């Protein structure tokens, strides 16, 4: 069975795997333009640009170089990353250039501290 599983896969930024990732979501959306004329019952749309984004949740570990790079990028450095890879398994990934658009650190009783990161693609997403 070729169904993929979370024990394989990883998220990497500029070639460095991010550690302690507990959840990651890649979303691709396609913009549409409404071209429905008057007098028809069903909407008609025109395909516009594609976009993609990645949301990553980690158990927060400031000593993790991948996590630290993201936090540094957002606070004092460049928030644009040229190589973002969402690995489905050990070798296949969806990759592109993206901007880190948010970083949230959460402390909550009963849970490890969490680091939530959101990236928005600013170029094509390629699967390889």
């Amino acid at each position, binding site marked *: 069975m070729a169904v993929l599983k979370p024990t394989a896969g990883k998220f990497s930024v500029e070639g460095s795997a991010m550690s*302690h990732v507990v959840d990651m979501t890649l979303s691709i959306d396609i913009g549409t333009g409404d071209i429905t004329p008057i007098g028809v019952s069903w909407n008609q749309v025109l395909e516009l640009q594609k976009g993609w984004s990645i949301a990553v949740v980690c158990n927060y570990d400031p000593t993790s170089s991948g996590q630290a790079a993201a936090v540094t990028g957002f606070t004092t450095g460049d928030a644009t990353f040229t190589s973002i890879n969402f690995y489905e398994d050990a070798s296949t990934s969806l990759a592109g250039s993206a901007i880190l658009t948010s970083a949230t650190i959460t402390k909550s009783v009963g849970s490890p501290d969490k680091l939530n990161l959101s990236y928005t693609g600013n170029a094509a997403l390629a699967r390889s």
Partner: protein
Amino acid sequence: MADSIRQQIMDAVITSLQSIKKSGGYSSEVKYVSESYQGYEAVAKSKLPACFPIDTEERKSYEAIGEIGGNNMRGELTVVVTSVVFHPQDKTRALRTNLLRDVEKAIVNGATLIGLTHEIEAQAVTTDGGQIPNFSIFDQEFLITYFYDSANGG
């Protein structure tokens, strides 16, 4: 190969309980710590107060995607400490309440335990309900959460 983390946790629990002495800032003077509890009647009164820790059920789950970082598994181990106190007259309640506090203090603040674990939570206290004159027997339950690498086991 190094001891399992579960083994190291229990070693640290025993060390923490053995440290319960008035000279160490506690209210109680624990005289005996053992993992073998065979009933309060089997313990000589000269060994009381006594504590009997045991590692019980454990839940395990994945904690990270992939196999990176070395902490891709979570273990949630329940440790129960059964304690026995005795006073021939009217101090049983004081001995019980003091030791309840001291056991929790020793486990939750044990430096070695903290180093091994992610979180130590005191969860429940169960007593004998005053069924045995002059004795008090009670269980304290702790949920100990730790992370480990699936390649090594917990």
